[in-house]
């Protein structure tokens, strides 16, 4: 079946294909343009080049295992996807997450959000030609990823936020890295503001380009920074506060005109607010009840110590590896043997604990939520990130659907570039922050 585009194109206009292999580092999307000189008469967007079968795959994985697939949805802010899924499951299971875990979740989500906005603006400014802004923001992102890596172990796809809490407690020394990241990111934001805010070229390319009105934005289902750039105040963190957002003081920047520049500015200001939230949470987070690292030594250190002492006597080995003791675990994971793994003291020393641990991971056992369906949304980097899970009582979801915010934002792309020049496609598309994993799932 020929595309609508091919059947309605006039014979004397030029057809240009901005193909799926895009230099603009947005991954894979195809925009077909019908041009009259440089002006776009008609366009069609074709997706699906990164459709990886997320929803169908999740129907074949247990609730615990499919966490890794959620990381790869909005891959520039992976912790927020994890958070959305974990909170949806907690709503279904009725789990109460301990307070320290909530603060940890907020800190790392906001760090992820800043990294998301930095990447979006980096790509957008690089495609407009401002390569310096790209390099500076990438530098800031490295510091933020250091923070994430120190606690979770991975820079990007972490699978850290688990159902019931988080995987491990914060690193005892995390504050140093957080302070460095905050200082460096603020420096970079100041530099980028100076480079781009009043830059004549950048303003010409983004001011009054691809203007979106409020009613249209709501009709298209826009949420997140793109909706707020049109002037509508809707932020899931403020409207339906979850975790500890109600204890943090932060503003929600709003735009006026809904053009590219407003979308850029809203993201820049939101980054500053996210850094404020991180600072407040680092100050407010309850102190850990027990020592963060296990008493006694982990095996590797014990072996080294034994070699240096030439004898193994007197070395106290930690039986409970990687801080999974009962004392640490109750701070970071909810209490619910049907939904979280038990502490290592029970696993290694009692038969009931061993069976509980074993059954958690066995096929057919493990997390089995009650029958029913639930929808829960968090504020993702692009807007309302919602998970709709239908459960039939078994250990695998019957249906898992993601409400990806950038799907709805990109649905308006054809309308926004109508009548504009080809060169306007680039900043428009960049300011929308299309992430292939979330768009195509």
């Amino acid at each position, binding site marked *: 079946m020929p595309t609508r585009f091919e059947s309605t194109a006039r014979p004397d206009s030029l057809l240009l294909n901005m193909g799926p292999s895009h230099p603009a*580092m947005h991954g894979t999307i195809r925009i077909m343009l019908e041009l009259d000189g440089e002006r776009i008469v008609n366009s069609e967007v074709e997706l699906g080049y990164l459709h990886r079968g997320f929803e169908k795959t999740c129907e074949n994985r247990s609730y615990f295992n499919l966490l890794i697939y959620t990381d790869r949805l909005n891959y520039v802010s992976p912790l927020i996807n994890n958070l959305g899924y974990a909170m949806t499951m907690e709503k279904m299971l009725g789990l109460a997450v301990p307070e320290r875990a909530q603060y940890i979740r907020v800190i790392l989500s906001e760090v992820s959000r800043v990294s998301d906005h930095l990447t979006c603006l980096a790509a957008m400014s690089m495609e407009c030609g401002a390569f310096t802004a790209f390099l500076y923001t990438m530098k800031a992102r490295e510091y933020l990823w250091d923070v994430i890596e120190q606690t979770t172990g991975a820079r990007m796809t972490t699978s850290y936020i688990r159902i019931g809490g988080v995987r491990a407690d914060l690193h005892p020394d995390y504050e140093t890295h957080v302070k460095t990241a905050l200082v460096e990111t603020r420096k970079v934001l100041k530099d980028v503001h100076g480079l781009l805010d009043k830059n004549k070229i950048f303003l010409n390319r983004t001011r009054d380009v691809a203007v979106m009105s409020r009613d249209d934005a709501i009709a298209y289902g826009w949420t997140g920074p793109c909706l707020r750039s049109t002037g509508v105040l809707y932020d899931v963190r403020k409207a339906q506060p979850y975790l500890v957002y109600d204890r943090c003081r932060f503003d929600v920047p709003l735009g006026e005109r809904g053009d590219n520049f407003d979308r850029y500015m809203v993201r820049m200001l939101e980054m500053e607010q996210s850094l404020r939230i991180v600072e407040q949470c680092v100050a407010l987070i309850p102190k850990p009840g027990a020592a963060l690292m296990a008493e006694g030594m982990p095996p590797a250190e014990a072996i080294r110590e034994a070699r240096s002492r030439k004898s193994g006597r007197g070395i106290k080995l930690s039986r409970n590896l990687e801080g999974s003791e009962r004392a640490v675990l109750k701070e970071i994971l909810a209490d619910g043997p049907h939904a979280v793994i038990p502490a290592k003291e029970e696993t290694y020393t009692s038969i009931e604990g061993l069976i509980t641990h074993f059954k958690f991971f066995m096929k057919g056992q493990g997390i089995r939520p009650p029958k029913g369906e639930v929808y829960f949304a968090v504020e993702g980097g692009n807007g309302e990130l919602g998970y709709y899970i239908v459960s039939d009582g078994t250990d695998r979801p019957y249906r898992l659907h993601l409400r990806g915010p950038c799907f709805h934002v990109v649905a308006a792309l054809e309308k926004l570039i109508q009548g504009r020049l080809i060169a306007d496609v680039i900043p428009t598309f960049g300011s929308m922050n299309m992430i292939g994993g979330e768009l195509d799932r």
Partner: protein
Amino acid sequence: MPGNFIATRFNYMLGWARKFSLFHYPFVTACCGMEYMSAACAHFDIDRFGAGWTRFTPRQADLILVVGTVTQKLAPVLKTVYDQMTEPKWVIAIGACAVSGGIYDNYAVLQGIDQIIPVDIFVPGCPPRPEMILDGLLKLQQKIQKQEHDWRWKKKTS
């Protein structure tokens, strides 16, 4: 055969020149693209290995970095881009999805790009750290150095 010594020396020089002046084409699709961006930027500079210049057209590139998942829908596009590249050309598959389909074993994902194009270096990881990407590039440079280059204007037989 006379000139054998000269031929090998010339081959060595050609290998040296080619390996330190790679123009790469980043065929970026998914999450690994973020690590590729990190590898290309200031922290883990790819430019110090001579491969800094990104050519966004396959005609001018001699190395294609396939970064991220390649779906069945995208496979003909990848093949077209690879065919458009001129000889000599090399392929690095970065990320578990490009290497073997990764965690996605389903109806939509191509299980490894070596099912459609020949690959020189596989860099596994989900995503691989930028240092691993640079290590893959270095291994490719060793491979190019040792390779027998075709400088006598005849078709490659192998």
